[in-house]
């Protein structure tokens, strides 16, 4: 056993590396810049966690997902690694202060992209030796990615300020042009690129034509009753996660629960806990808010509403079958489903009136943070709209040197139009894939990601034909907690009767 394996076992309890992990870590430890395209659930976080613990200095991990940060910090702490922390805008001032003053005792600092840009944070980070800058969800840096975030654009300059530490860019899905964008914007020099296929052979792909909404509901009930559990159902809105969970609870013997961003942190933690413990068979969540947890034995992912692009789709169905066992991805396709994703795309950007009014509102403001705050708090703008406006207003102002509101609005409106077109184009690619009935779905999906198909699994897709081989589910034997509270409390505290 060599040093890396020894640490792997000591800190993470694994005896061997998964495919490719080792090569990535060695490249990282050699101080190279690295790009990895690995599907979620393949242990990509290990690629920076292990080097972080082995190397001297601090590893900074940029991640936009709060739940992911929290879960990883928690998992590491449970494994006995206390020198980790998560820094984000939800902390109180004292908590932030505490973390920034204890950087020297940390090995890994998780941080949100917006926090990374604060001067207070930068000032402290610059005092320490940064051994690695890991950028999770790196596709957010590209305007051609499916989740572009303006605050990611600045990571390149932040990296420079840190003294250009080696950089590891991680993403689950990235087409070739997005990969090029990542390399350019993060200013990676001669990076090592590791690409893993988006293909998951143990997940069968199926699209079911479900007609109208009532038929779709019936179809959903039929599918969840037929399939082995546990599973995840994706819907387009918070409200719908709740109605869907109620529908499943009332019409089947399964235990279902909703999970979305509008719930309190406590409730979300409880539902996660119940799902992990097997108390809940089916979790209904929005595709904007997936679960941050890693449950290996998810047997199915059903989409009641389809996502806005294939990248999201691949990520969401990737939550199934992480244990490598046979699993299903099923999408219920209705006649009128195109409306929702289109309105979601539209709402992502401010409309032309909001652009014009917003710009004249902030045109005298020099600080980006103050401008954002003004738009959100006084103007009532949505956070992502405000961020978008401020970013492009500043870009315009810096490049043209002028503060003309109408000219700036025209410039920004053109960007909005271009971005919207781009997104609609991605949506159409998604729809092409959905309505296709002649070409193997797996092959078509891989085509989109510019990959060639390998061997097709036996349970491939509905176009190739799916044999009914899945075992019928056993009715879950659920232990309800007693109605006798004294009994319940006694068990909780391990007291004898």
């Amino acid at each position: 056993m060599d040093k890396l394996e020894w640490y792997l076992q000591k800190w993470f309890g694994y005896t061997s590396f998964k495919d490719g992990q080792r090569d990535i870590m060695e490249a990282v430890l050699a101080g190279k810049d690295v790009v990895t395209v690995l599907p979620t659930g393949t242990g990509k976080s290990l690629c920076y966690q292990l080097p972080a613990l082995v190397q001297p200095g601090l590893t900074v991990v940029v991640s936009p997902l709060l739940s992911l940060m929290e879960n990883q910090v928690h998992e590491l702490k449970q494994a006995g690694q206390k020198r980790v922390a998560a820094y984000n805008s939800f902390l109180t001032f004292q908590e932030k202060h505490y973390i920034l003053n204890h950087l020297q005792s940390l090995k890994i600092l998780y941080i949100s992209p917006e926090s990374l840009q604060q001067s207070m944070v930068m000032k402290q980070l610059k005092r320490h030796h940064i051994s690695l800058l890991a950028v999770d969800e790196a596709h957010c840096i590209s305007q051609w990615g499916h989740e572009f975030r303006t605050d990611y654009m600045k990571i390149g300059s932040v990296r420079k300020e840190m003294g250009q530490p080696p950089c590891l860019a991680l993403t689950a899905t990235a087409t070739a042009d997005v990969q090029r964008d990542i390399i350019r914007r993060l200013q990676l020099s001669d990076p090592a690129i590791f690409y893993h296929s988006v293909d998951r052979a143990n997940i069968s792909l199926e699209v079911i034509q479900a007609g109208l909404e009532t038929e779709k509901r019936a179809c959903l009930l039929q599918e969840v009753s037929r399939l082995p559990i546990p599973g995840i159902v994706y819907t387009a809105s918070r409200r719908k996660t709740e109605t869907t969970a109620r529908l499943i609870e009332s019409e089947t013997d399964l235990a279902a629960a909703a999970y979305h961003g509008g719930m309190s942190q406590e409730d979300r933690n409880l539902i996660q806990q119940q799902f992990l413990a097997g108390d809940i068979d089916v979790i209904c969540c929005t595709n904007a808010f997936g679960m941050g947890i890693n449950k290996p034995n998810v047997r199915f992912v059903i989409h009641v509403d389809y996502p806005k692009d294939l990248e999201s789709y691949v990520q969401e169905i990737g939550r199934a079958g992480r244990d490598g066992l046979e699993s299903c991805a099923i999408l219920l396709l209705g006649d009128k489903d195109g409306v929702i994703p289109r309105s979601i795309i539209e709402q992502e950007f401010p409309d032309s009136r909001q652009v014009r009014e917003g710009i004249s509102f902030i045109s005298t403001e020099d600080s980006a943070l103050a401008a954002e705050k003004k738009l959100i708090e006084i103007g009532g703008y949505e956070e992502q709209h405000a961020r978008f406006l401020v970013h492009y207003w500043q870009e315009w102002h810096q490049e043209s040197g002028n503060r003309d509101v109408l000219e700036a609005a025209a410039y920004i409106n053109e960007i909005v139009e271009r971005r919207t077109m781009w997104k609609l184009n991605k949506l159409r690619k998604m729809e092409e894939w959905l309505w296709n009935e002649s070409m193997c779905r797996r092959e078509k999906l891989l085509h989109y990601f510019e990959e060639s198909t390998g061997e097709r699994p036996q349970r491939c897709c509905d176009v190739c034909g799916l044999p009914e081989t899945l075992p019928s589910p056993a009715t879950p034997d659920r232990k309800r907690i007693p109605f006798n509270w004294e009994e319940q409390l006694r068990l909780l505290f391990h007291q004898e009767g």
Partner: protein
Amino acid sequence: MIASFTFRHYIFLLVLRSLEGDRTPSSLFHILTGKKTSQTIQDIKWYRLTEYFRMFPYWDKETFQKDIDMLERAGMYREEEERAYLTLKGKKEIERYFHDYKWPRLYNGWKYSHAAGRFWERLALFIQSLSFSLAKRSFLPVFRDFDTQQWVKQHWPRQLSKKKTIAQKLHEELVMLLRELPEQDALLFTCRLSGHNHSGYTLQQAAQHVEQHDMDELYYRFHAVLHYLLEAGSDLPFLGTFCTDLLSQKILTDSARKTQEYLAQGMSLSDIATIRDLKQSTIEDHVVEIASEEAHFPISLYVPEKVQQAIIRAAQNSTTYRLKVLKEKLEDKSVDYFSIRLTLAYFGGTDGQA
């Protein structure tokens, strides 16, 4: 469509019964959602409504407006010159609804709502950690915020024997206290706790378990258990550690606290107003707030004892606490509104006892 009224509507009417005709609908809204302003604080003291303070903190303005519109259409509520009134029908409806209602053992929003949330977080996380630790299993913590985790860390027993003792004692204390409660309330509380044998229920899930489907009422009942545990548990050796520091925190607004610091340095109200660049009336609001919270507030420095007594007498002989009415009743016409407000805030309630 027939309007369906729920727990929060009837509570609104109940609170309205106490300050009918004296206050605007938004005064009621601020009491029930727990907005800490000098006006709200005076209201709950004068009208003895501290128990209703912050009963539904999540109630939003829009829903509230819809709710009172609905009550008005049903003839249970009316507004006149921006003041809120209870109709005869409303009175009857309250009596019918609360006729055999089994109130929780204790609920005091003014005294405990600021501590209840943290208290629950500590208790739930500590019990979960203890339960799993004794079962030697790992878990996802119910609460992950820094303060709560830090607190649990500081109070965490390291040795196994210590863990077992705490489990036994804490269990004993909880059973003893919960036995004093209605069965459903004890069940509601226990089913929300997480441990090695059970993942805690969300309030929604608990609704199914205790078969109580009015979510506002359920929220209230759950918090009532917490308030009760805070009051009855603060003297107990184990439960006490979860709440003593929370209960000793002052409930003044930040701004009033600052004024209090200046007062302690011996500054006059007008000096404080100048230094803080605030209106004199704002500083007066602060002083009223401080007087209502501090039993040792030196009220006689501001209002001569004779005047205090005259004000209390006037208030006792009156059915209202509208300042204008009280001022007219006083023989000494030089008594100002500030003196009246201060006196009422300090002595609080209807019987003139501090």
